[in-house]
């Protein structure tokens, strides 16, 4: 089926997003190509249909935010908050991602081929994130559910105040946050991780080379004797 092209030097982001939110746009089964994104904000935000969108260039803030069902590829880098609050579907950033990538994503898969900056996966609520490069400091802060895979290194304070999300890191971890701990990889971890790496197109990494980070669950209950030492 024939695709459709948007050129953001000729059309506005509102033109694009209005189409993507319309009945016609939701029914589109070819690829929707977005040219000259030029770092514009909110490209392909709030989609709610199994459409395929390819962004040819660098996207600005909140690209593919709140995504449901759609498959969105960004050929360049993404600004702050890419795929924030994603519910389902797939978002693929081929370059790097700025701060707060995949923040509070409830579902779906976010793949970042390059590095992700600080606070990647903050407050993750069930989505999956696979980062081909490294993640910045305070990533997966207060992450509640879901999985984050880091094929490179992690910065300071990884998984601070973690709830039930599980993190897998292949490289070095500069420091773990409060209540985060390294745990042995189980058979289930290896299976889940291998599947995620395969889905992300990063099958060159072996699941056995990753470390598991999860919550100590010591912050779940108030401890009056902790004397502010966590």
């Amino acid at each position, binding site marked *: 089926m024939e695709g459709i092209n948007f050129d953001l030097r000729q059309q506005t982001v509102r033109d694009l997003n209005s189409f993507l939110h319309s009945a016609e746009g939701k029914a589109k089964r070819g690829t929707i190509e977005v040219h000259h994104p*030029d*770092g514009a904000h909110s490209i392909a935000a709030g989609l709610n249909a199994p459409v395929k969108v390819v962004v040819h260039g660098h996207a*600005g803030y909140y690209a593919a935010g709140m995504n449901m069902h759609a498959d969105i590829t960004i050929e360049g880098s993404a600004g*702050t908050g890419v795929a924030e609050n994603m519910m389902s579907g797939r978002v693929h950033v081929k370059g*790097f991602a700025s701060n707060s990538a995949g923040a509070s994503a409830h579902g779906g898969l976010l793949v970042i081929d390059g590095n992700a900056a600080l606070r990647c996966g903050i407050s993750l609520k069930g989505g999956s994130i696979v980062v081909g490069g490294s993640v*910045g*400091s305070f990533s997966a802060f207060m992450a509640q559910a879901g999985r984050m895979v880091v094929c490179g290194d992690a910065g300071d304070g990884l998984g601070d105040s973690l709830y039930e999300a599980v993190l897998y890191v292949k490289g070095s971890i500069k420091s773990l946050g409060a209540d985060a701990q390294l745990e042995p990889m189980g058979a289930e971890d290896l299976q889940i991780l291998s599947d995620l790496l395969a889905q992300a197109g990063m099958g060159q990494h072996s699941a056995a080379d990753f470390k598991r980070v999860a919550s100590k669950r010591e912050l779940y209950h108030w401890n009056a004797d902790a004397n502010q030492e966590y």
Partner: protein
Amino acid sequence: MCGIIGLLIKKPALRSELGRWMTPMLIGMTERGPDSAGLAVFSDPLSDDHARKISVYSGLTALGSGFDWHALAAALEKHQDSAVTVQTKDNHAIITVTGDPEQAQRFIKAYDPLLHLLSLGRSIDLYKDVGMPAAVAQRYDFAHMTGSHVVGHTRMATESAVTPDRAHPFTAGQDFCMVHNGSLSNPYQIRRMLEPRGIKFDTDNDTESACRFIEWRMREGDDLKTALETGFDELDGFYTLLMGTENQLALIRDPFACKPAVIAETDDYVAIASEFRSLAHLPDIDHAYVFEPAPQEMYIWKA
């Protein structure tokens, strides 16, 4: 919010393009900073070692853009007992003096206390004013500026009032300027450290504290890198800071990277902006190396 831009032209033959490339960068950051705009442009230093350029703003005087700069120049010439030249554009003049430049600055301030001294140096010219970035750019003809590097800013005020003197860039000493996206939490602590050393402030703006602090460190003998390292220890708050000296551009972000920056580099230029939106029009951008500067790292480029 606020927007930051910086551009350093690597090939001297392309310095004539500075204004044409940089003006859309500045206007591209309008949404981040619609209340004021400004920039410092650095070009080849004056050939006379004893000559200095003083950028002066007349928008706060009674006559505003109708200020009689030539009467000031004539009086200053008499006072300095040496030649004075003046180039004017709307509210702005570049006054070139020989002899003691600080004495000349004092004379200008006494001549009309409502004149605002913007910068002093052998290579810096500084323009800033309130209004939309496109209007400020047009008022001072930014598009035709030439030079080796530029440091620019669009302001959305949070820490002090919207007035021309509180717009960025700020300067201290000679051939040094700073722009800031963010907010410092200890500007008064820094002021209280500097004021007993005789360092005077023009405004209550937080960025002015950081600017005067870094310049003071360099005057005390630190190189830029050492001064910035001290800055990481002393400056508390959120910041992306871009600084210009006669022959360098320097960029730092706070350890939490609260404020953005993105860099594009080609064989022809290094371009810095708060967001990629301001870089998208640059020549050969599709083949530029585009990256995000890491928090608490120093990025210094030589012009």
